[in-house]
Structures are given as structure tokens and as C-alpha cells.
């Protein structure tokens, strides 16, 4: 799919997730995106799913504690400076669930964009903010590289009889992982420059015409935005 058609779909999903009022519509949209995401190879999807699950669960936990709405208290906590009373009401839980669903839908849409879009085509065809697009594409590639490096660190340590266990053990790998990524990034930058990256006379890749599939995607994006604004 052309990057512009995929971008339209992504934008429509994000807008719909933010403006949809009915929880059922939101659940349906999140469900469809989740099903599509599950169709990508598990090895690539699992990190995105883990990130979405952790951030969504975190929001669901924090929301009722920081919001102050509702008249049906389920739990009354202490009063803290700045935050005020830490109580949880039924209404806060419901609002938290809605916001969590919104966050999860937006994150799922971005995960699908990252996993399903032909990033090469995006970088090669983009004429606007090409450097930024390239950085995003390289960052997307970085996730599996980081995963592989992390496994390499764990293996190297196990090879010396050091087991990496628990959050504390894994957090110790964060700084070496960043250092390793920076080393890789430097080599990549050097290699790109040696291959002419940054020359002003770069060729423009010819863009193909919109196919019927891409036209349908554009129409569906428009329909999703309009219907979520008016009815959903």
C-alpha cells in the first residue's frame, strides 16, 4: 500500500479513537486493529503488544487515582499533597477504562503502521521531511536489533555464569544496550555518508498511481472520520 494511503488510514484511526463517544464503537475499532496486528509475525508483534499492554494497564491504574469525579466510592485512600484525596469511584473506573481504550487504539494503529507499512517505500517516496521519515524508519528497525542485542548481552553474561534475573538485573543492561546502539548508529551513519547520503542532487523515485485498493483505503478513512464525528 502507498505510504500516503496508509497514513490516511492511520490518521483516521487516531481521530476516530479520540472522538468516538460510544465505548462499544471504541472496543470494536480496537478489536479490529488487534486482530490485524495479530496477523503479523508474532516475533515482530510481541514487543509492540507488550508496550501497549504495559502503557494501557498503567493508565488504567493511574487514572482513577488522579481523577476526582463520581459519587459512588469503591475505595477511600489517604490525602496526599498536590494529588489530594486518593479515592476510587465507579465513575472514575469507567472513565479510566474509556481513556485506556483510547490509548490502546491509538497505540495499536501506530503499531500496525510500523509493522505492516513498507518502510522502504515510505523513505524512498517521501519528498517532505525525508530525514525525519528516515529516522522513524531506522528507529523502527532498531527495535528488533535492540531485542537481539539484549539477548546477546544476556547470553554473554550467562556464558560467564552470571544469570540476569528480575527487573533490577535487566535494568543493568539498559546503559550497555544504549551504548551498543550508539556504536551501531555511528557505523550506520558512516556507511550512509560513504554511500552518498546527504548529497543535494538525490534522485526522486517515481510514484506509482493509486490502485483501487488504495483508493478504497482513502475513502474508508474519510468515512471513518465522518461517522465517528457524527454517529459513533
Amino acid at each position, binding site marked *: 500500500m502507498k505510504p500516503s494511503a496508509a497514513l490516511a488510514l492511520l490518521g483516521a484511526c487516531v481521530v476516530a479513537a479520540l472522538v468516538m463517544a460510544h465505548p462499544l464503537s471504541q472496543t470494536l475499532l480496537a478489536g479490529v486493529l488487534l486482530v490485524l496486528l495479530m496477523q503479523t509475525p508474532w516475533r515482530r508483534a510481541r514487543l509492540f503488544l507488550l508496550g501497549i499492554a504495559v502503557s494501557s494497564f498503567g493508565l488504567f491504574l493511574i487514572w482513577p487515582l488522579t481523577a476526582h469525579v463520581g459519587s459512588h466510592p469503591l475505595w477511600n485512600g489517604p490525602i496526599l499533597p498536590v494529588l489530594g484525596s486518593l479515592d476510587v469511584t465507579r465513575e472514575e473506573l469507567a472513565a479510566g477504562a474509556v481513556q485506556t481504550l483510547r490509548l490502546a487504539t491509538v497505540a495499536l494503529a501506530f503499531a500496525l503502521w510500523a509493522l505492516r507499512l513498507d518502510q522502504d517505500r515510505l523513505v524512498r517516496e517521501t519528498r517532505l521531511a525525508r530525514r525525519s521519515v528516515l529516522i522513524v524508519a531506522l528507529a523502527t*528497525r532498531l527495535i528488533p536489533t535492540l531485542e537481539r*542485542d539484549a539477548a546477546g548481552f544476556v547470553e554473554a553474561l550467562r*556464558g560467564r555464569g552470571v544469570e540476569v534475573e528480575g527487573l533490577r538485573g535487566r535494568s543493568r*543492561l539498559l546503559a550497555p544496550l544504549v551504548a551498543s546502539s550508539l556504536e551501531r548508529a555511528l557505523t*550506520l551513519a558512516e556507511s550512509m*555518508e560513504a*554511500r*552518498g*547520503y546527504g548529497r543535494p542532487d538525490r*534522485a526522486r523515485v517515481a510514484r506509482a498511481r493509486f490502485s483501487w485498493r488504495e483508493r478504497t483505503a482513502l475513502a474508508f478513512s474519510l468515512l471513518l472520520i465522518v461517522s465517528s464525528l457524527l454517529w459513533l
Partner: protein
Amino acid sequence: MAVTGYPRPALAPGESISARIGCIERLAFSYPGSEAEALVDVSLELERGEVALVLGRSGSGKSTLLRSLAGLVPHFHGGRFSGSVTVAGLDTRRTAPAALAGTVATLFQDPEDQIVFDRVASEVSFGPENLGLQPGEVARRVASSLAAVGAEHLFDRSTRDLSGGELQRICLASALALEPQLLLLDEPTSQLDPEGAAAFLNLVGALARERGMAIVLSEQRPALPLEICDRVLFLEQGRLLLDTPRAQAIEWLEENAPAFVEPPKAASKQDGEPGEVVCELEGIGYAYQSGVPVLENVSLELCRGEIVALAGPNGCGKTTLAKLACGLLEAQEGRALCHGRSGYLSQDPGRYVVCERAEDEVALGIAGDLPRARSWLTELGLAGSERRHPRDLSSGERERLGLAAVLATEPDLLVLDEPTRGVDPERKRELGEMLRAGSEGRATLLVSHDLAFARSVADRVVALEGVRADA
């Protein structure tokens, strides 16, 4: 790999195939923050159609010399630069590396770190597109450079799914797609098996001859490149000690740096029977997530006091078997038993350092015993580096640090995965002697593409072929 479909560069009227393509005059260079000079008063000329082999110990300035010809030194790295480097009439000090891209192409050591795109076709077309070529010309160059390295069949493949050898070929195709007059190859065969390395180097020789491009090649396994090169350069501590045709170079190397030309001498092997069995692998089968079996019905015994080398082509399962032997992987079929403690030195150990001081890195596996860690650093020639950050060490020093960290645990089974990758011949000899000296108290399994090294140090060599052991 056949050399096909790639036109010779157009020569100007009256220009001969031996015309000078590069010239370095009195080049001196120091990296930022470093007192030591990486290159000292280096002068040389390069001609079209020749293959120049750069030899030298680790840290002697080989990679810096190549980077200076590509303009990456000083533009990308900064530092103090004096003298001049001219490539095809362009002064690299006044011409940015990107502007040199149509003239010079560089292939770096690790192919994984050079990949920008997901698809092979996009990766190879990246350079030509940066040059501003028309889409038709880009497509022609992509097709011809892939054909030149025998990788047309990989055109639509994802770069994520390629083996190390395939990636290396794609990186070479990406460099060739720039149709350079000067091709710089920095240890291009370090990850290839002997057959792959020979095919790669034969291709390089053919490219130089048929297309008239100059090729500068640095290598740590010099036997094969010495057969195809026209000329040898030898660097020591940044100084160019030798710049001479191949025949004279071999004589000079025999006299002054014999480790670079002589096959490693076989270290004194163990006499008599080996000790008790330390590791038993019986009927081992293993497949990764793809489900394709990597190992089927492999059996191997490792005894105390013996060194066993595991050889075989890229992707035959050597590393998998090594990890199974030391318990990093669990066998899906068969039985893997290790009696005692095992230690595993991974490929590229210098990348996987986690502490901020070298001594802490070694002490990590021995319950923080710093005196013992320091003695192992001294043993590995790293005395004086105890408090340095591991990432400030040179690549060779980092490899040795990784080895020290594993040896310090005094394992009953020591598994070394490609320990000679990027290691110069003299260091290899030292490593071989060290492994033999300490071999009595343990069983050692050595995974290596470097057959000469493996034969010199091991009591027996086990060949893995495809998915079946041929032990």
C-alpha cells in the same frame, strides 16, 4: 560467483588502465582526544586495476587508512589531519565523503551495521539514488551489481532474513552499484567460511581486472588475499613499513612478520589419553522458531585436557551446537550433559561489555574478586587497562577482555565461538599458545572458520555439514 553484467568504467581518451587513481602524501592523523597518531607520515599511490592488500597488527591503522581514502577521515571522525589525500583528482579534505561516493565505495567490517533498508532491492539502490541517477539507470545498476556478486535471487528478499554471508554480498553489491573507481574493503571476509571467503576474494580480483577499478583490501586472514593481490602494504603503529609488489612482499613478510605468511605452527598437543568426559552430546536435534532443523542426530564427547575444533560452512549449526554444549540452549532431541561448570565466549564479545571498568567486567563472573580479575587481565596482556572503560579499549583489547572474563571463571568446559574474528595473526598465535597452555584442566570447544588456526591448536577437528554431523 561470476562477474557479469557490469560495464567497465569509461576511460578518458589517452588514459591507460594503469592511470593513477589515488595518492596519499605525508598523511598523519590522530583521532579526537587521542595523543597517539593513528597514521604517521604515510605516502602511497594507487593505480586502476590493482588490488592492494593492507596488512598489520590490530590497531596499526589499517581501517584509518581506508577511511582516509574515503574522506571519512577527517570529515566524519574529526581529529588532527595533515598531509593530503587525493582520489580521482579530488582532495578528500575539501570534498565531503558523500560527494566522493560516485568515485569511492567502502565496505565496512560488519555487514549488519551497514543495512539501512528492509528489502535488498532498496538497500542496493540507496547509493545510486543518492547520486541523483535516473530511475532506469538506478534499476540497471541494482540488477548488474546483484548479478556481479551472484545475488540476483535475493532481489526481493528482506535483509532481516539473510545470513551473514548473504548480507556481506549485498553490502558489496551496494558498494558496486556506485560504480566506483576505488573500492575499499575493510576485513570483508571476517564472517565468511573458507569457501565463502575464497569466492568473495576471487570475485574481488576479477572485478579489479575486468573493470579497471583499484581495490584496497585489509585482512586478518592473509593467506587467500595474498594469492589475489598485486601489491602489499604493511602498517605498524600507523607507519607504512612496506609498499611493494606481492612477490617481494612475501619475502619481506617471511623475514619481518612471519605470522602473516606462515601457517600457524601446531602447538604441542596433549600426549596420551584425554581425561574424563566433561561434556556429552548424544543424538542432538535442534530447530529454531522457523521449524527448519539446524541440527539432527549429532553426537560429540568432550574430554578434560583436549581441545576440539568445530568447523563447517556458514549456517551449518556450529554456534547452536556450541550453545547446547554449554547449556545456553536446551536440546529438543537427544541428551546434552555437562559435568562441571561451563564458560562461553560469544562471537563479537567486545560488543557485550556491561561494566564501566575493565576489572569490574572480569570480576562480574567471579563474585567481585578484583585481585583475581586483575591477574587475568595481566595474563591476557591488558595490564594497565584495569580502570579503563571497556568501550574505550581497541576492538582487539575488547575481544581479549571478553576472553579474560570467561577464563576467570575457570570453567571445566570452555566454549569459544569464533575467537579469532578480527584478530591479527600474531595475536592468534598467542591465543593458540594460551589455550594450549591452560588446556589440561578443562575441555575446550572451539568454533572457528579459521581452519589453519583450528588445526594448529586443536587435538581434533569436527566438521559439521548441513544438518548432520560428520564427526
